[in-house]
């Protein structure tokens, strides 16, 4: 699957080395550490988005047939907010944090200083090619790093637009975009980075981490998983259905890491739920959803074939209760709902990442927690219920990157919440200050004075010193006084 990249010189291991060398020189020269430089870059990014919104929307339409509203809101507006937040809060984020000191190190003062890691690599994904490229870059800039951004070749129009815009608006001696596919990414991964952030799937995540291991490079992996939605009865079904639809087909037609992957509901409630979906889906996308302009397409023929394989599997195709239509030439699959697919079907054993929504039924809502926990930990889990006890159980029992109750996907827009996975859905987190932190080293600093040099630290080691040490480390003033008095006798 070669990408349609403009014919440039081949980007190989030597090119990658050169890029890193150049960025390291810039970093060492202190360019990116400079506070004003960081502000200028973030402002330039804002300007870049303000002045190029139509081009960005067009590129996203090219790559994904993304509706203008999704591009404007989920990509551009989110990024602008992220940028503005960093600009507003950076002066607080860069300040050292005071740390408490205890009797054991008295007299002393301590603080934690944030410093940039150095030269970082951001590898982003194709489904939100602008957001997942620039949001990490915002954090990396705010933290004072030099950056290489490797956008996904599966969204080539956005990748080359990014390369062009970043070169025009931002400081190329410190921030570079490298386009390409597997060979270019491999060349980049051979280099020594101070941090790598990867957004994508678990298979490549393993490759990235293994490459990072050679250089002891810390990584953030934003992966995926099967994000379940538990639907209880006794709720406002219309609102719940709409929110699930918004999170599923409203997010790049289900091609989002936090899209609802499948639904779990009770056998009793399933029919009502399916009816509600049918009603709302038609209201949103019309009778011929294949023709709706408000749905992204499937990104390419590989994924199209992959999704059809899930849909057309014998034991699954008979379970379709809504949708199932496909248009190969336009890479479109209609919003499709399936009811009670077998647990061992393909569709229930890989992340769907598309417009197919299986509904699994169980006897009691409580059974859903064990069902979810029997699989790998997802990036997000959702539950619609008004039952306080169930909410508490859900929060306590289900392990996922993030949870939302009575909605889907909105936690992504909340910068005070760390956004990241756990287990197979990833490691590390970002958004808001967490982005700044993830690209920083938090350096511990202890200031000591020359006064108060306790002889008990040093040899010759005596029993008296042992007594005093015990008291000092035990932190009790009385103990120390007693030991001191005892020691002065010894």
């Amino acid at each position, binding site marked *: 699957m070669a990408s349609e990249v403009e014919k440039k010189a081949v980007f190989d291991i030597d090119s990658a080395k050169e890029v890193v060398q150049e960025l390291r020189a810039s970093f060492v020269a202190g360019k990116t550490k400079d506070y004003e430089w960081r502000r200028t870059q973030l402002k330039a990014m804002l300007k870049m988005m303000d002045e190029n919104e139509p081009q960005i929307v067009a590129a996203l339409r090219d790559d994904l047939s993304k*509706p203008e509203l999704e591009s404007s809101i989920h990509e551009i507006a989110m990024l602008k907010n992220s940028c503005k937040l960093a600009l507003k809060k950076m002066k607080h984020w860069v300040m050292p944090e005071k740390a408490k000191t205890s009797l054991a190190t008295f007299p002393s003062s301590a603080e934690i200083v944030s410093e940039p890691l150095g030269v970082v690599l951001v590898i982003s994904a194709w489904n939100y090619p602008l957001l997942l490229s620039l949001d990490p870059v915002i954090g990396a800039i705010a933290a004072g790093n030099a950056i290489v951004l490797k956008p996904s070749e599966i969204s080539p129009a956005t990748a080359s637009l990014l390369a062009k815009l970043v070169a025009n608006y931002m400081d190329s001696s410190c921030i570079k975009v490298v386009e390409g596919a597997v060979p270019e990414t491999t060349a980049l991964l051979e280099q020594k980075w101070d941090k790598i952030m990867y957004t994508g799937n678990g298979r490549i995540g393993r490759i990235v981490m293994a490459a*990072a291991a050679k250089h002891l490079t810390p990584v953030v992996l934003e992966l995926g998983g099967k994000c379940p939605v538990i639907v209880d009865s006794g709720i406002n079904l219309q*609102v719940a259905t709409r929110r699930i639809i918004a999170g599923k087909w409203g997010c790049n037609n289900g091609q989002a890491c936090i899209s609802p992957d499948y639904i779990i509901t009770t056998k009793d409630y399933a029919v009502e739920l399916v009816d509600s979906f049918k009603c709302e889906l038609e209201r949103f996308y019309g009778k011929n959803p294949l023709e709706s302009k408000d749905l992204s397409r499937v990104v390419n023929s590989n994924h199209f074939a992959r999704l059809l394989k899930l849909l057309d599997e014998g034991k699954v195709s008979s379970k379709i209760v809504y949708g199932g239509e496909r248009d190969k030439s336009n890479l479109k699959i209609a919003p499709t709902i399936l009811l009670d697919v077998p647990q061992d079907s393909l569709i229930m054993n890989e992340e769907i990442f598309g417009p197919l929504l299986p509904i699994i039924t169980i006897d009691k809502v409580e059974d859903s927690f064990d069902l979810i926990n029997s699989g790998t930990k997802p990036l997000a889990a959702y539950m619609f219920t008004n039952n306080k006890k169930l909410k508490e159980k859900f929060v306590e029992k289900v*392990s996922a990157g993030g949870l939302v109750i009575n909605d889907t996907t909105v936690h992504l827009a*909340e910068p005070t*919440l760390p956004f990241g996975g*756990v287990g197979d859905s990833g490691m590390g987190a970002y958004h808001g200050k967490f982005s700044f932190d993830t690209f920083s080293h938090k350096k511990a600093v202890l200031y000591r004075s*020359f006064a108060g*040099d306790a002889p008990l630290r040093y040899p010759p080691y*005596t029993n008296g010193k042992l007594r005093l040490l015990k008291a000092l480390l035990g932190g009790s003033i009385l103990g120390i006084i007693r030991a001191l008095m005892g020691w002065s006798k010894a």
Partner: protein
Amino acid sequence: MLSSMEKSIAELRETFKNGGTKSISWRKSQLKALLQLINQNEDSIFKALDQDLGKSPVESYRDEVGVLKKSVTYTLSCLEKWVAPKKAEVPLLFFPAKAEVMPQPLGVVLIFSSWNFPFTLALDPLIGAISAGNTVLLKPSDLAPACMSFLVETIPKYLDNKAVKVLAGGADIGERLLQLKWDKIFFTGSPRVGRLVMAAAAKHLTPVTLELGGKSPAIVDTLSTTPSKAKVTAKRIVGGKWGPCTGQACIAIDYVLVEEKLASTLIELLKKTIKRFYGENIKSLKNISRIVNKHQFQRLVNLLKDPNVADSIVYGGSVDEEKLVIEPTILLDPPLDSEIMSEEIFGPLLPIITLKNIEESIDFINSKSNPLVIYAFTEDDTFKKRILSETSSGTVTFNDSMVQFLCDSLPFGGVGQSGFGRYHGKYSFDTFSHEKSIMHRGFYPEIEPRYPPWTDFKLLFLKLAYQFDYFGLILLLLGFKRS
């Protein structure tokens, strides 16, 4: 057919799955049991440390027993606070909504500890893992065999066997453990093995914390102040080099940087201090650990084999192969490309590198990979600021050595080749937790513009909403803004 190792791990997973480690009362009971273990076995611990490393009880208390007691006590007093979810601010737009971050255990964790502080480096991470509600497999280093045996025999007597296990063995056991899937791996050791651990973890997407090492320098800029400060500096350097396990410590001072003109003063002070602390010569050596084994002994002796290096010895240099002792040794300006100046020394050899101007120490340190600690003895505030902003290390300690280890509120960990991740105090709890984001929403009010079919009005509404332009939103809704 599961091996006994796999059975053990299956049991740990089962215990975790059944919620055996979740309750705060379980965690507290384990921590209290650990404290009891330490209190009731102090003498055995001293004996094991003496056997493996020749540590004196005072050094053992200061660096191992006391540190652990302090750590458990601190954790017990803070646990309820740490476990509580933290509220996160939610903007008006999401009203009514509640957001919080809740720490959760990762699951089954693997801890590899090192031989130089065989108790601290095994049990301090264990404290973090238990406090965060995980089940644990602890693999102590077999290079400190008496300590390892002690842990294998004693931990099952005090802690919950279904949740905390200790496995004896060498590198082969370590390799087998790394093939399995863990929810976290915590490793203390060398960068070489750190790479292997991380590569193995990558196969299972297991997050890791690597506490490695490096060449931790001491910059000395205070000798020209008062004599008493100079004396204290010397004591703290000596204490920071030979005090911890005779230099076999990741945070021991590896080498010293000082201005040429002060080098001889420094060396004289160091000599005096060494004699006072440790004795006049190798025959009368006391209050100091020994080298852990023949392999390390040979490695250190080999560092001195280079004739240019041997020539630079200005104090010490004697070795006793039978007792595995190398006396405190000072070298003055060994060649910068010698192995002793490119590898982490991890032993009782102290190179002193002279510079024309102490400010050059910054470039010198930056020419090497990021150390775990930079020690700087200076009272010049401008210089301090330069060191902080122009060098990178896990920690910086001004005017002392080693004591940052005792500070529970400071994160302890490396950067670059000295490692990543951190622990101590709450950082231990955090390193073994997943911070789960939780957002609670109400069904009302509903924001229609969230849903298709898309219109220009909805687009404008959402744009204003995302800018948190509440006034603009009101205008739009009242019809005063055109889409």
